[in-house]
């Protein structure tokens, strides 16, 4: 288990992590989300004792990192796949780390096999692709068979097969009862990978929740309706108190579920050609939650953002 209590980090006048507290439980994959510059990497570095906290504490299974005897047996970490000496071989990179914690050479070869790098174990890592470096970093994290695994952007640089592999692998590690804490910008991946979420913005905790609760609670949830007498049905729904938005031949109803919309249509004798639940994506929920907490804002090149929930804007008030 990872516990952060009132973690604070300042760089000069700027507070990048501000009184941050959260828990990461074993047995599930916990995603660590936040816009660029939110303080995710700094938080992970403070947990590992790499950056000195200006306030607060972080513990790993109840103890701060500085009190761990052989840290690799407790916590494995991958902060950046590029933290490698280019002229050192993959095996020597792992061996140098392993021997510091009293681990065997056999374990080095074992983890190289687990991440699929056995064939290139004797090659210098300077020639590795980003995906191979990522796998090597993961191998380093797994060396001590730790109960806690912390990964910063683990899917970064991996091909689709690699992304699926790491997703399955992390889920497997969590199923074994380990604490898995992973940050990612790939929200679609996080939706598939994580069950719990810690979301921060501007260094502060925004939400500590589950993926399903976050998505369910987002305002993007709506019912899509296609009907031949759409104009009349729109007016009828609005008159009954539903929040509706029209675009072309589609109607989006928010605040009502499909059963209620269907029953209303049946009672009012409207013919429907489509009635479907439109769930917001994790991306929608995340963007909604972190609006205002983004350090670096962008302007959309198109008038309507890609999210379908945002294409309806004429009637009602979907987010």
């Amino acid at each position, binding site marked *: 288990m990872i516990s952060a209590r009132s973690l604070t980090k300042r760089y000069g006048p700027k507070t990048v992590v501000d009184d941050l507290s959260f828990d990461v439980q074993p047995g599930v994959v916990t995603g660590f989300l936040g816009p660029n510059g939110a303080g995710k990497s700094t938080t992970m570095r403070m947990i590992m004792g790499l950056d000195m906290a200006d306030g607060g504490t972080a513990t790993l299974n109840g103890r701060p990192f500085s009190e761990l005897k052989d*840290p690799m047996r407790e916590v494995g970490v991958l902060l950046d796949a590029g*933290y490698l*000496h280019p002229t*050192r071989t993959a095996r020597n990179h792992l061996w140098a*780390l392993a021997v510091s914690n009293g681990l065997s050479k056999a374990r080095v070869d074992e983890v190289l096999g687990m991440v699929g790098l056995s064939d290139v174990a004797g090659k210098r890592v300077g020639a590795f692709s980003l995906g191979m470096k990522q796998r090597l970093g993961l191998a380093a994290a797994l060396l001590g068979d730790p109960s806690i695994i912390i990964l910063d952007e683990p899917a970064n640089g991996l091909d689709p097969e690699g992304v699926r592999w790491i997703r399955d692998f992390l889920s497997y590690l969590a199923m074994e009862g380990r604490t898995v804490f992973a940050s990612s910008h790939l929200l679609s991946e996080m939706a598939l990978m994580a069950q719990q979420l810690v979301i921060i913005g501007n260094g502060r905790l925004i939400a500590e929740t589950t993926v399903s609760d976050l998505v369910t609670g987002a305002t993007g949830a709506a019912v899509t309706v296609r009907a031949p007498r759409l104009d009349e049905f729109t007016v009828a729904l609005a008159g009954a108190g539903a929040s509706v938005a029209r675009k072309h031949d589609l109607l989006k109803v928010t605040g009502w579920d499909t059963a209620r919309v269907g029953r209303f249509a049946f009672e009012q004798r409207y013919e429907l050609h489509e009635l479907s639940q439109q769930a917001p994506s994790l991306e929608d929920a995340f963007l909604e939650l972190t609006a205002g907490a983004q350090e670096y804002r962008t302007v959309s090149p198109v008038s309507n953002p890609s999210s379908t929930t945002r294409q309806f804007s004429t009637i009602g008030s979907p987010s």
Partner: protein
Amino acid sequence: MINQIRSEWVKMRSVRSTLVMLASAILLAVGVAVIVGIQSNDRIDTASALIGVQIATMLFAVLGVQVIGQEYRFNTIRPTFSTVSSRSRVIGAKLITMLASVAVAGATLIAGAIGVAALIAKMRGIPFDLSSGDATRVIIGTFVSTLLAASFGYGIGAIVRQPIAGIMIALIWSLVAEPIVSGLLPKVGKWMPLSSATNLGGTEVLDNFLSPLAGGLYSAAIMCALVAIGSRRIATTDA
């Protein structure tokens, strides 16, 4: 601590720069000994035979910078500090490993240079005397110089935490700054940390510097201070 020393040894021997450095030192030490042996007229003295080793001490200073500086250049210091909870243990293990390696390398270079010089002297039929007290001072002094130079490099590397800048500072300080100060201001020059150790392995004991023992001890104290400052900086700042 033993495990950490083993780890640092793996790191040191598994990068190309260490091997290049050691190969260069061997070439320098043996090559200069060969040249001195061939060029000497009536006898070969120990100090002359070890000139190559004296020059190679600069490479050991560079090695000292590299041992710590490269960890920061390639950010491997983060995986290192993520696997060991005590930074002072890492810093200490690095220093011990580096000094032990330099001690072995320095002793080997000295033995190699003397061996080559003795062989050439025998082939040419000229004397090469190793039994005098001065020869003993030169051999021990040269050996200690290699350790002092490596410690100097390590201290600079730990303070600046950047290998290129560290190497530039170490080389400019030892090859430019100290010789200029010693030449222009002899009274100040003898208190320069590297110049003060000049008498340790020189061809003759110079009056304008500290005695071999005093100079060596003074230089060692300065190197210890540099290492302590660098270690403190590493232990107390973000990795």
